[in-house]
């Protein structure tokens, strides 16, 4: 308790001091990878730059990259809080418990934890509905595949990734009943070598569309080398691989959210929230659909996109059965967020076993 009160006291003193000296709001970012990864961490850093661009002299941002999940991240967060950060974004699921621990010691500092589920008075959580983007990808994939085999590189069998696979499969099957998914779990978020190998194996086994839920551009390069294979950018636009193999992409667009939350801290209106935004709110961006996609497919994909954007269509709309054939969603029924958040099953038709 003593430690906590010292910390709180220091934090108070600093806020008071900085408050009287200048109006600068300090925003810290904790990254799990290097800012140069051109994927997950890169996009968070773009969000940081958006905050700097939006507020100019009124903010000061700082970051620490490649912070291992665990005690090191806890120290980095504490260090930022001690230095007078008003708002700290912790951008990896594994930072969940450390964020809660540090937040308890600094009640005056606001924390924003990405992709987690634990909230506190000064801890908000935020995540993106990437599965909405997967619906568009599945739609294009189903139309474009000639071999009817779609390869999918998964990172870890967790709900977020499983949602993506299901969403892509449902919308591929919608337009192409013969489509088949081949799934490889890479057990990594970012390992170019492994991702390249996985993509090559999928292509060798007949896939002419490769979807990826890992963050490097290695599968794009593998697809390019193979020739007649299309891919989609993940996390970043990966536009340098367009117009083919990369025919579209899912872009993590954190900028608007980061700017809004910083503004809330400045205005004193920040409150603990749980945000799960999708295409509509602009957190999930869909990269340009390139000329390699036939115009009619592009048009129908964009129609789907706009229905997802305005909310008139939910990516998980019944009838949908689970893989074992049991009913999940009745006709017209849409999935609730609770089921989606903990999704641990494939939908009917996916011919692959879930690990563990």
């Amino acid at each position: 308790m003593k430690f906590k009160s010292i910390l709180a006291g220091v934090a108070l003193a600093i806020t008071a001091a900085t408050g009287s000296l200048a109006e600068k709001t300090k925003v810290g970012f904790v990254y799990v990878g290097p800012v140069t990864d051109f994927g997950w961490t890169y996009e968070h850093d773009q969000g940081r730059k958006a905050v700097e661009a939006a507020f100019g002299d009124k903010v000061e941002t700082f970051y620490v990259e490649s912070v291992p999940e665990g005690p090191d991240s806890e120290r980095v967060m504490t260090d930022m809080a001690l230095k007078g950060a008003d708002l700290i974004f912790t951008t990896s699921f594994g930072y969940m418990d450390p964020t809660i621990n540090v937040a308890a010691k600094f009640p005056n500092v606001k924390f924003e934890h990405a992709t987690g589920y634990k909230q506190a008075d000064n801890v908000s959580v935020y995540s993106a509905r990437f599965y909405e983007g997967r619906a568009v990808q599945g739609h294009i994939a189903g139309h474009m595949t000639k071999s009817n085999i779609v390869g999918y590189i998964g990172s870890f069998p967790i709900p977020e990734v499983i949602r993506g696979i299901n969403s892509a499969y449902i919308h591929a099957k919608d337009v192409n009943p013969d489509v088949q998914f081949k799934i490889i779990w890479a057990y990594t978020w970012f390992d170019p070598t492994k991702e390249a190998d996985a993509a090559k194996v999928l292509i060798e086994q007949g896939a002419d569309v490769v979807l990826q839920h890992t963050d490097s551009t290695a599968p794009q390069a593998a697809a390019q080398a193979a020739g007649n294979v299309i891919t989609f950018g993940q996390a970043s636009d990966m536009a340098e691989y367009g117009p083919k193999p990369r025919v579209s992409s899912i872009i993590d667009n954190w900028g608007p959210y980061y700017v809004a939350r910083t503004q809330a801290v400045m205005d004193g209106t920040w409150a603990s929230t749980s945000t799960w935004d999708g295409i509509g709110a602009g957190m999930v961006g869909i990269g340009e659909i390139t000329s390699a996609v036939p115009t009619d497919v592009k048009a129908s994909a964009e129609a789907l996109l706009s229905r997802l954007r305005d909310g008139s269509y939910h990516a998980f709309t019944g009838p949908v059965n689970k893989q074992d054939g049991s009913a999940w969603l009745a006709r017209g029924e849409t999935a609730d967020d609770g089921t989606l958040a903990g999704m641990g099953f494939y939908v009917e038709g996916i011919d692959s076993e879930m690990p563990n």
Partner: protein
Amino acid sequence: MDLSAINPTLLVASLMVASTPILLAAIGELVVEKSGILNLGVEGMMIIGAICGFAAAVVTGSPMVGFLCAAIGGAAVSVIFAVLTQYFLSNQVASGLALTLFGLGLSAMIGQSYVGIKPPTTYKLDLPLISDVPILGPILFSHDFTVYAALVLVLGVWWFLKYTRGGLILRAVGESHDAAHALGYKVVRVRFMAIMFGGACAGLGGAALSLVRVPQWTEGMTAGSGWIALAIVVFASWKPERVLLGAYLFGGVAILQLNLQAAGVSIPVEYLSMSPYLITIVVLVAMSANRAKSALNAPAALGRVFHASR
């Protein structure tokens, strides 16, 4: 489950490509260890090679210049290790680990402006007719040149160690540096050159990753390949021809695992991934249980410090 989706020919062809970086690094480390030096810095030298090769290839537009610079870069950082262990008589284990740490950091700094760039394409063998022969075509005649270079290098090292005077001296130095010294061989000079050769090979291996197998540059992209190369040397019981087998085993398990997954076979990935390491241990035990034979292979002076006191 659909095992028929796995095409054995393509499986073999792609495991050859996947094994090339570790094969290159391992054959270099084999020469180093044959001279009696244990360099645990393979990972560090590989990643320096990966970025040097990538940067040079991007700047000049020529993959060949890239590979040349990769070899030079790998050899250059290995000089740090060589100076420390040969002149400053530092412990090899600690120096090697420090080299890995340093290499990972330095490569990431050099590489900051090379992220997200596509390298020039490396020349790939494509002979009319021959490359299209079923089975043999994809396996033997349709690779990029690193695959062939690695095989030639293995052959060269085998020949060098077995049939040349230089190879004999190298092995003598690795067996007993004191005896070799007494015979008038320059122990330090031989080892220095062996270490640089190992560095150059590791550098080439790194470039095979960043220019061919992936191909792109990212921080820490070797992701443990250097350590696998060390395991392969042991697996091979310090014999060049077995290094080839070891590299294909380690590379093969990685590729087979992905193939089985894609074919819908539910496999415990972790247990399959640990199997090459367990096999290596079994090989080690079998080898050391058979002492008479193993004495011919494992360099007796491996890891010991040499100081000529006269």
